[in-house]
């Protein structure tokens, strides 16, 4: 069975352009999609692509460790949201919801609009309604792609190629936009980790100290733990004890 560094090496056929495109897609998914499963999966994909890029820039075992840390972060966030959704599987109908007084069509439509659509889009009570529309967020993503591409030309990052510099700027900018547009702890956390992934792509190639790299990874994991605590605190009801 191949080890993780070997696995990363075997994926060497994926070009930098393809990796950059994948990062464009994953961060855009996190920015656009409200569903928590899709968002966490996109973050995991982001960590895998970042690990792949890093495996060509630094020692493969360091890239593998980064990938493992990312996987653990996704797992921590997944378990936290899962805990909340299992304990409170709510998209409850309002108290004044009065089915018998409406026509059949209106009733079906209300059930779909109140229960089914929010569930698909992830707009349950644990995350609330998004403050901005999809079009706005998509345009914001496009704008950030443009800014990232421009920045990587005007402010090149030492020792990094154009594609990877674009990836660094893109992840940092997209993460900041996600942070700005979301109050929900999960989405804000995904934004924060998107920023961190971009920073990792740059910093890991610069810093030779294993101690700092290790401490940075530990800090990432601790941030994920603190965020999971906040996710659970937000999802819990007054009867619960933290």
């Amino acid at each position, binding site marked *: 069975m191949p080890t993780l560094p070997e696995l990363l090496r075997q994926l060497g056929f994926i070009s930098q352009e393809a990796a950059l495109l994948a990062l464009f897609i994953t961060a855009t998914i996190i920015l656009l999609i409200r569903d928590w499963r899709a968002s966490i999966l996109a973050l995991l994909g982001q960590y895998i692509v970042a690990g792949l890029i890093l495996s060509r820039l630094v020692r493969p075992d360091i890239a593998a460790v980064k990938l493992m840390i990312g996987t653990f972060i996704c797992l921590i966030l997944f378990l936290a949201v899962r805990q909340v959704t299992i304990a409170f599987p709510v998209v409850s109908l309002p108290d004044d919801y009065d089915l018998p007084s409406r026509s059949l069509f209106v009733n079906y439509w209300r059930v779909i609009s109140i229960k089914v659509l929010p569930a698909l889009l992830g707009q349950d009570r644990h995350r609330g309604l998004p403050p901005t529309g999809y079009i706005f967020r998509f345009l914001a993503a496009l704008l950030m792609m443009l800014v990232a591409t421009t920045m990587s030309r005007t402010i090149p990052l030492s020792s990094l190629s154009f594609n990877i510099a674009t990836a660094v700027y893109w992840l940092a900018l997209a993460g900041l936009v996600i*942070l700005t547009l979301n*109050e929900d*702890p999960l989405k*804000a956390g995904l934004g*924060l980790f998107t*920023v*961190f992934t971009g*920073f990792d792509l740059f*910093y890991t190639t*610069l*810093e030779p*100290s294993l*101690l*700092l790299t290790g*401490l*940075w990874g*530990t*800090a990432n994991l*601790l*941030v994920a*733990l*603190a*965020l999971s*605590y*906040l996710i659970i*605190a*937000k999802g*819990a*009801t*007054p009867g*619960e*004890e*933290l």
Partner: protein
Amino acid sequence: MIPAAFWLIALPFGAAPVVYFFRRVGVGAIVAAVVALFSAWLALRLPVGLGWRILGRPAELGPLSQISLVLLFTTTALLFLISSATVPFIAGVRKKVIDADVLTGAGRTFYPLSLGSLGFLVAASLAQHLGITAILVGMAGIFAVFIIQGSRLESIRAAQRFLILISLSLPLFLLVSWRIDVYQLSGLRPLPRSLQETALLAGIGFALWLAVVPFHGWVTATTAEASPISATFILVVFPIVAFLTLSQMLIKTPWLVQSSQLVWGMVLAGLVTASLGGFLTAFQRGFSGLMGYSALYDLGCTLIIFGLGGPTAILMGFAALTMRALALTLITASVSALRLQGTADDAFAQMAGAARPMPLAAAGLLGGGLTLAGAPLTIGFVLRWHLLQNLAGFEASGAILLALAGLGVVIGYLRGFRALLPTPADKRPGPQFQEPLLIAVFIVVLGGVCLVLGLFPDMLLAPLRELIGGMSLPI
């Protein structure tokens, strides 16, 4: 051989599990306070200047670290004692009426978590490498998230903001640290563009740590949502370590000061923060808001002191941090006592007439606020007057703006004090309680210290001067 300064890190970490075990009984708070006080004594007694290594990187208990650690430990011990003084009162007298966690708000895990956070902050204060310091402060911040949130479920805004802003500062500091390492190892002078970039990264990082406008959200949210004791812990200990790190960075990398933008940026950021904090304090309608915005005003003032530099910048900066710790602890003791009147909401309207049963708490609140504002007869006046004189020499309009902001803080606290005064129509429902004896003692002692130091400022400045020696910022 284990260096003596190592015990300053080990003591809080070692005591945290013991305190956690006893968290449900009063012993936990007492043990935590004793450990913090002993650590403060130890920090004062240990010889300075002895180098050692922490995680393979240089560490040292320097004069500035020593002052910071004494401040950190003493303030934390006082907060533990204040918290422990209110809990028996609630448990004994009003057990069925009010949940202790709602009033003192700190929650049972406050003591062990604070010790854990303190352990990281002590390690950060001793570490001489900016990257390690930043990560350790980040870890302390992660512990602080649990302290801010406590056992509340209503809102996570404060804890989330704090976590995100502290976390966002980490990449910036790591990049600055890498650049500093590269320059120091190569022995080359940084190019002007590189210098500006490094200064910009460091500036944004410190702006996040020091709640400079527009990154001030975590300060006001923390005072609004967390208990007064938890909020004061966060508002006192993190800025102390932030200013210590800033001083050490400027002293060790004097070339960074060649970036004129950094110095201008520090003064301007401090002025904007102090002005916003001061003016908004005047319009607050609750005591938590007063505390948050006046703390913001004070942070801005201290940042200006460091930004203006000069031979006395370090002395006056650390004196300002001491004053901040004193004033905020006094305000916390007073607000904690006032909240025992039975309302979890500390809006002025809810506390109307509370000065009748709790005159000391009302006076303590006003005294603490006036000290932060820099009113005459308090230690704050000496420091603010010195700051205004220095700032007037740099930018006269800035000094006027800062004085007006200080006036805003005075107005805010006078409004709060007025709301506490009993009116003829005041008929508060239910029983009225006096301050618990220990809290009253704390308020009298802390208020007295603010006044005595105001009358005889050398009692604070002389020992600080002796500890600091000839150290000065290269600004």
